[in-house]
């Protein structure tokens, strides 16, 4: 039997893709987490929300198919958020 069903692998690939996208265009920090992180802080969810809000998508914080579709569109390399 395969170690993981194909859909799980696809989901993991999508999540890795989304992480890279959010790191690049929404300054997602996956290393060096802030010391004063709140208990319920979910950086990826927050950044997905930020991205969904910017693109006028339904804001869920979840990596749904519409969000993924927008992430996969060809685009300009400049981040959408101020640095």
């Amino acid at each position, binding site marked *: 039997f395969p170690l993981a069903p194909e859909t799980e692998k696809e989901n993991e690939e999508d999540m890795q893709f989304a992480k890279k996208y959010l790191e*690049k*265009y929404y300054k997602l920090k996956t290393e060096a987490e802030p010391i004063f992180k709140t208990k319920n802080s979910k950086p990826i969810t927050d950044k997905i929300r930020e991205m969904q809000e*910017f*693109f*006028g998508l339904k804001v869920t914080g979840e990596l749904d198919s519409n969000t993924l579709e*927008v992430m*996969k*569109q*060809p*685009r*300009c*390399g*400049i981040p*959408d958020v*101020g*640095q």
Partner: protein
Amino acid sequence: FSTFPGSPRWTKTDLKYRILNYTPDMEPADVDEAIEKAWNVWSSVTPLKFTRVYEGDADIMISFEAGFHGDFFPFDGMGNTLAHAYAPGEGIGGDAHFDEDEYWTKDLKGYNLFLVAAHEFGHSLGLSHSNDFGSLMYPSYKPMDTRNYRLPQDDVDGIQTLYGPPIS
């Protein structure tokens, strides 16, 4: 529309640009035409004037680059990131880089160079991304008929907050 943090802008209205190299995807004359047309989009609604230079320094250097190209923001091969440009400033400020791994065209068979250049030059002049879906500064590429192209109002409003309307 939005501007970059601190709203950097050029303090002069006569800007020089230089095309450092060409993509093999297009005839050089077609690249020249797309670039010139992209500048016209912005000069028609501001007091800005753009003059091409062929050697030496220019305010805005334009080049086609693949992968790592010396600015800590490597391109990623075909698809995804198409190009990037820097906000107004000295040195690399204002410069526009196009991903050579894309297929550039004067029409819509590949990525239309005019559409992407016009967007990037918006960054070169100080505009950041807009979340107005119909605007030129929206971050995703949208193929469209470029004949009689008219700059959307959101972009006109944005650039005129930085430079004002054309001087009649």
